[in-house]
């Protein structure tokens, strides 16, 4: 690489860009740390007019709902990531083997689903009327188990494993199952870690299937919990149909700051974890983007 200019103006430009990108986060954090009265008086500010930890106290005082949300989210993240990694690797390995006779039809079989799908309505009917998965953890885990994009990334990694290793294992009399579980999987630990992070973030942020399939309180993941809080608040604030009594009851509660505190508590862990894993994401995206 040639020497970089490291121009002062370019640095200044990026600092401005970064400030613009970070600002919305600051606003949300600031709201969650403001006292309710000051929010009503001055509106949302980037620096709290009157600091207060009240919102967080309220969130943690009755932690049942949010704890249950955490439970569901952690559960689908762990189960989903493990199952998804296994399925993805099992599919990517035969596709990556150039001596596999059905490698092209199988590749087409997988990637065609990226180009064409039945759309939401048939999928919804399949999940609810035929598989009977409404209101179950499986409804949150199953739809995202095998993304063609992840298979593509995994295949990219597996392509780099030299065929000689597989050949020599075969000569020693190892069967394909043994080669896969004893040689391929251990060799691709770095790939599995990177991909596992991608998948885990996906499950942590999962709201789409929850929105479609969950209405039982027992299975509400964090993101759906946030959806409900926001839409309820908006309904009460904007809709002429909302009852006056509802509005009054709602107003007694320090809702504005609590709402934002909930959002922070729900997504905080991921934002803290993110910078540490960012370089793996960058690696994964670079590999994925260079081919396809």
């Amino acid at each position, binding site marked *: *690489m*040639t020497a970089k200019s*490291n121009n002062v103006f370019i*640095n200044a430009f*990026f600092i401005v*860009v*970064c400030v613009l*990108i970070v600002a*919305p*986060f600051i*606003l*949300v954090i600031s*709201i969650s740390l403001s006292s309710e009265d000051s*929010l009503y008086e001055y*509106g*949302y*500010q*980037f620096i709290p007019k009157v600091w207060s930890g009240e919102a967080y106290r309220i969130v943690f005082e009755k932690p049942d709902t949010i704890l249950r949300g955490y439970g569901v989210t952690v559960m689908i993240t762990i189960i989903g990531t493990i199952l998804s990694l296994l*399925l993805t690797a099992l599919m990517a*390995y*035969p*596709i990556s083997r150039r001596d596999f*006779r*059905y490698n092209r039809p199988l590749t*087409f079989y*997988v990637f*065609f*689903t990226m*180009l*064409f799908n*039945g*759309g*939401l*309505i*048939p999928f919804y*009917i*399949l999940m609810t009327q035929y*598989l009977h998965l409404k209101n179950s953890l499986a409804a949150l885990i199953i739809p995202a*188990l*095998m993304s063609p994009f992840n298979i593509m990334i995994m295949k990219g990694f597996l392509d780099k494993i030299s065929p000689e290793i597989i050949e020599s294992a075969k000569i020693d009399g190892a069967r394909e199952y043994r080669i896969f579980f004893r040689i391929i999987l251990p060799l691709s630990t770095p790939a599995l870690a990177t991909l596992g992070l991608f998948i885990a*973030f996906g499950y942590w*942020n999962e*709201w*789409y299937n929850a929105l479609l399939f969950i209405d039982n309180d027992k299975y509400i993941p964090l*993101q759906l919990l*946030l*959806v409900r809080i*926001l*839409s309820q608040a*908006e309904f009460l*604030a*904007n809709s002429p149909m909302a009852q006056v009594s509802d509005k009054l009851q709602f107003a007694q509660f320090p809702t504005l700051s609590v709402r934002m505190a909930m*959002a922070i508590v729900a*997504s905080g862990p991921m934002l803290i974890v993110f910078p540490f894993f*960012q370089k793996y994401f*960058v690696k994964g*995206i*670079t590999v994925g*983007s*260079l081919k396809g």
Partner: protein
Amino acid sequence: MAKTEPVKLSAADSPVPGKTKAKTGGWIRNELRLFRKNQELVVLALPGILFKFVIAYLPMIGLILAFKNFRYDQGIFGSEWVGFRNFEFLFKAQDAFRIIRNTLLYNFAYIITGTIAALILALLLNELSGRLMKIYQTVMFLPFFLSMVLVGYIGNAFLDFENGFANKVLAFFGLPTHNWYLETAPWIYILPLIALWKGVGFSTLVYYAGMTGISTEYYEAAKLDGATRIQMMTRITLPLLKPLVIILFILGLGNIFRGDFGLHYFIPNNVGPNFPTTDIIDTYVYRALTKLGDINSAAAVGFLQSVVGLVTVVSANYIVRRIDRDNALF
């Protein structure tokens, strides 16, 4: 692929398939022999094959709903055929024109703004090195990993009628405030802005990765000839990056019928009055499904989205192949 699969499944079940059919022809025997050789790898892929079949291929059958009058009690196959009746609303109702127009125009806006911004940022990022550059990259990448739900919260912090920051700023300068969620005009700027904020870090990274792949020899040679950094950017980096830019652009166009449901559902917060400028095919279909809307019309639009989506992606890929075979998806 549908043809080969049953063969694989049945043959995998019987341990000695070749012997009984020895006389049915040479190529069948040969095919079975080859299958046995590959059998173990097929078994490894089998869970995924079955999974994809149920989750991705079975719903394709459901596309016939576009030509049926669906009733839950009669199921997909029991419901009555109605020909093209479900499609009639496309030419009658305002909804149809509106959601298709919105889907296309917004996606087009996202592609244009996203490509230009990411290119500029990647070019400038390429001028930097070291720790600061890494920090910029991380920060710009951050919103990409937020769920749209959380982005909805952030949007609310700015756009809330009474307390939102946007109205506070307008009021500070003595300008009239807006009830953003109940208006239509502002959304054509707000949505692309948020899409840019969320996605620009990712696209920048993709272009930046493309730039780091350019051989340093070009730059060294240019330097010897006394080229300025601006000249290197416009004469070396951009031309060499052109195939990648064109490819991503065309692939984006190929996906132009597929809307960003999260963005259009959580940011405008599903409030009726702003539908004229925020409703897209995906949100329309979702509402039809969950809020007891017209499921038959939604099935018709969904059918159109799937089929036209396939046509646009395949044509886009065809064009990419003409430009640069290596970068085509298939």
